[in-house]
């Protein structure tokens, strides 16, 4: 039983380490911000989740007390990683205006393509409409 648990913990640790490394390698290597977002938000979150599951298996088997902290951290990370990635992407889009940086892998040269239909992209429409008029105040690109 102890050997099975040890093998499981070791396997999860190795998987977690590899995924964390792959995520950070993507962050360092990929060509543009929008592609760099993919590495940390997916691979690193999965790697940290594997490390936390390894810790959850390790402590009850090898004499420690079971604690819910790992489960809380896992839940919190899995909830907040997409939200923070969305916030970073939105800040980047609004910061750059129409000219997001070049992304050769997506064949986007130096800007957003026009959306299908007549209206603009929804995030720019909301930013243009509520410029100080609403109490919510969603206007105001810092660099239009």
């Amino acid at each position: 039983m102890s050997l099975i648990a040890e093998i499981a913990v070791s396997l999860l640790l190795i998987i977690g380490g590899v995924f964390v490394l792959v995520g950070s390698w993507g962050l360092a290597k990929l060509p543009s911000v929008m592609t760099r977002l993919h590495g940390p938000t997916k691979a690193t979150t999965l790697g940290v989740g594997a490390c936390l599951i390894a810790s959850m298996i390790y402590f009850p088997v090898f004499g420690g007390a079971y604690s819910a902290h790992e489960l809380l951290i896992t839940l919190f990370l899995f909830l907040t990683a997409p939200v923070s990635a969305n916030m970073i992407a939105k800040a980047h889009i609004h910061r750059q205006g129409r000219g997001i940086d070049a992304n050769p892998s997506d064949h986007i040269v130096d800007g957003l393509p026009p959306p299908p239909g007549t209206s603009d992209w929804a995030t720019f429409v909301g930013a243009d409409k509520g410029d100080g008029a609403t109490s919510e105040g969603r206007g105001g690109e810092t660099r239009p």
Partner: protein
Amino acid sequence: MTGTILPVALGFAFVCVSLSILLNLFRLWRGPLSADRILAVDTLTINAIAMIVLFGIAYATAAYFEAALLLAMVGFVGTVAYCKFLLRGDIVE
């Protein structure tokens, strides 16, 4: 109490997380845009959580998990605050 497999796996995971932190620091130093630097700091926080969990397994103590939980929460709030600052030029309006 444990055999020989677990220390090897722990060492491998330590090396991987340390290399990841170095790569994050490279992006934080290099990153041409502010979004890159925010992303690098966010990933640094997540890697620090992984490092704390690995330390907890290596020393067989559960004393560090509150630090990891606090780091997760503060890291998320910090990322959102940085993004709001980029978007609006202000955090609390």
